[in-house]
């Protein structure tokens, strides 16, 4: 921020780029900030992915093979799976889909010159990076944070996690949360106030709609997490007893607060993916999205209903049967707007002139994985069934399909779709398709067998297991290896694109790509839409 004056100065010079440090470290430009978000996300993905591959390596066979540093270190495994969860949720998916693509393309798609508060945008970015640093530090403090991403007390209380590691983790989430809240306010103001003349809310591209709904979810959910984390922090350090039953508190209250945030959080992750997939399906089917308004309001409905289903994560805490009946019913209701979305994607493709470029393959992959995870989601929504599945690998398989891998597929889809616009270089289509198939085959071999292990009763969050589960775990680990190779291939493609990519056209996708970002040159110039385009009388963008 020392260079705020500098940043102000370059606003006055059309396409004059500032120096390296000013440009990337003090940026107020939505495209540059988006790019830095993307690279932060990729870095965190390598760290978090590396952890998951180590866990799969350990789980490939029964017994402990790699955790044995003298004595078996089970806490280290807990630290790995906790950090994996935190990294993937807060520092990979959210920065890429919201911070990266959101920053890059929301202003472009609505014809705005930049975000409403460019400097606040910069603060969001650096709060996130500081949060990431704190999280990585927490792994080296004491015995690390081995609480799982849900941070349930009493495991996260000072009895079972003495030392400062959990405090580092809490502060890390506070910073990441503050970053997201500021980012969300920025998006809401930008989308409400800075759309091009004539672009009404009902003509906005669906990706912008998805970011708008996500931003509201962030505003409503993250402060609750911040409040709960602060209570936990004061419980640990300042003698309060919000969650300590031996002093009048209640650990179940933490679960209520956490999941009141946690359930909307999974929609925060997946809604931008919905928006992105809508753009891509429409582009490569060369048709407008089927049921545009239904698609937009389905996202709103998912967001609203997402706030009243949280206790379906807590069926085993002793809720009475009526409460569980309500949460089961409310959870099943979410399948309706979700079904509207799946139906409309398929209806968009129906009769379209479909082109199987890499982004479209990834969009197909996304829909497949999301439906797969959705089906197990409807299974798990039933509290009677969930009492059996709770904390087994069936749950692990479910949420990796529906949220984790689906979101990663959307990120890949978005990267292949927009890299030409972002870098000015086009990726290699053949390598892209190979990368898709490796990844698609890899993740299915990785996660599908976990359904079987879970149905057979294998618990989550353990580094060792009875020999009976050995077979499917081995298959799953082979899948992890294929996925790892697919990931390496992606980074090779990324490198080749920047080093030797062909020059990207303004619109490489043809008539199907109708949104405003395809009306500016590739790469998108430093400043775009300083004169806002007139969108009055135009059709909905998608």
């Amino acid at each position: 921020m020392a260079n705020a004056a500098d940043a102000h100065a370059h606003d006055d010079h059309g396409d004059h780029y500032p120096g390296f440090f000013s440009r990337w470290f003090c940026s107020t430009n939505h495209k540059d900030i988006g790019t830095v978000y993307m690279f932060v996300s990729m870095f965190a993905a390598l760290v978090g992915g590396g952890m998951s591959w180590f866990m799969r390596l350990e789980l490939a066979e029964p017994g402990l093979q790699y955790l044995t540093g003298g004595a078996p270190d089970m806490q280290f495994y807990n630290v790995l799976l906790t950090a994996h969860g935190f990294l993937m949720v807060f520092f990979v998916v959210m920065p890429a889909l919201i911070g990266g693509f959101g920053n890059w393309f929301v202003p472009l798609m609505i014809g705005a010159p930049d975000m409403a508060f460019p400097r606040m945008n910069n603060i969001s970015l650096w709060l996130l990076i500081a949060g990431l640093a704190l999280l990585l530090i927490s792994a080296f403090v004491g015995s690390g944070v081995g609480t799982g991403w849900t941070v349930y007390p009493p495991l996260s209380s000072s009895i079972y996690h003495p030392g400062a590691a959990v405090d580092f983790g809490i502060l890390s989430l506070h910073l990441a949360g503050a970053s997201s809240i500021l980012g969300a306010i920025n998006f809401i103001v930008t989308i409400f106030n800075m759309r091009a003349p004539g672009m009404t809310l009902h003509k906005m591209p669906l990706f912008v709609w998805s970011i708008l709904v996500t931003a509201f979810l962030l505003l409503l959910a993250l402060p609750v997490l911040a409040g709960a984390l602060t209570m936990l922090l004061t419980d640990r350090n300042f003698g309060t007893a919000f969650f300590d039953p031996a002093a009048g508190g209640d650990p179940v209250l933490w679960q209520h607060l956490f999941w009141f945030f946690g359930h909307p959080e999974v929609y925060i992750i997946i809604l931008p993916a919905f928006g992105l997939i809508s753009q891509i399906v429409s582009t490569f089917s060369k048709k407008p999205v089927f049921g545009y308004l239904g698609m937009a309001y389905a996202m709103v409905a998912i967001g609203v209903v997402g706030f009243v289903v949280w206790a379906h994560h807590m069926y085993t805490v002793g809720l009475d049967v009526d409460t569980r009946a309500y949460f089961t019913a409310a959870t099943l209701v979410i399948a309706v707007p979700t079904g509207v979305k799946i139906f409309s994607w398929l209806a968009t493709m129906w009769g379209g002139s479909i082109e199987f470029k890499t982004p479209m393959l990834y969009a197909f992959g996304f829909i497949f994985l999301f439906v797969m995870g959705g089906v197990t989601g409807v299974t798990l929504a039933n509290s009677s069934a969930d009492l059996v599945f709770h904390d087994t690998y069936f749950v692990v398989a479910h949420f990796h399909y529906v949220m984790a891998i689906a979101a990663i597929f959307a990120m890949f889809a978005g990267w292949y779709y927009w890299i030409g616009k972002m870098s000015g270089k086009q990726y290699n289509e053949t390598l892209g398709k190979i990368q898709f198939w490796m990844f698609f085959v890899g993740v299915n071999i990785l996660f599908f067998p976990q359904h079987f292990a879970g149905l057979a009763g294998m618990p989550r969050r353990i580094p060792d297991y009875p020999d009976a589960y050995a077979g499917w775990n081995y298959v799953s680990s082979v899948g992890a290896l294929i996925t790892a190779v697919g990931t390496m291939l992606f980074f090779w493609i990324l490198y080749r694109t920047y080093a030797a990519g062909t020059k990207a056209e303004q619109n490489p996708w043809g008539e199907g790509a109708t949104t405003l970002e395809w009306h500016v040159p590739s790469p998108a110039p430093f400043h775009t839409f300083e004169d806002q385009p007139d969108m009055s009388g135009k059709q909905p963008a998608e």
Partner: protein
Amino acid sequence: MAKPQQKDARRNVRTALACASLVAGMVGLAYASVPLYKLFCQVTGLGGTPGIEAAAPEQATDIDFTVRFDANINPTLPWTFKPVQRAVNLKLGEEGLAFYTATNNSDHPITGTATFNVTPLKIGQYFVKIDCFCFTEQTLQPGETVDMPVTFYVDPEIRQDRSTEEVTTITLSYTFYPKKSETDGQVSALKQKSTPVDIGG
């Protein structure tokens, strides 16, 4: 150009402030949820929170029921705390009396409070306390031992609720913990008179 830009900036700040107040409201709601959750539990009996009434119903039933007693202690409180009797048998709707005994093992007076709940958690709303040592703070002098009474009844409605009709035994559990700031309170529960009924077993 300057004027409309200023107007835009004002509008942006207004929208941002509206968003910020939404955030502040949600943080407030998160903290408000602590007392609200407590209240909700008391009203609905959620999580095995017993109800509180002034007296037992006039008419007891002739249905047998068992209430068992459990005692826990916060490790930072140097007391011994246990129930005098393991269980009492009584009729639904009948007022029961039980005693817990507590000893201060330290060399200074200590004030403690007890939290309580009943299991199975679903019967919270049918277990009613009339009077209890847990309603107030308890101060024990060094080496002092006191017997602390609790009077209660089990609401016969428990047999009308399909989800609780099979329950024949309830466990009442207490956890004593030290009060944060030491005060010279009285062992008020001991001074209260209660009218015990005949406790079978």
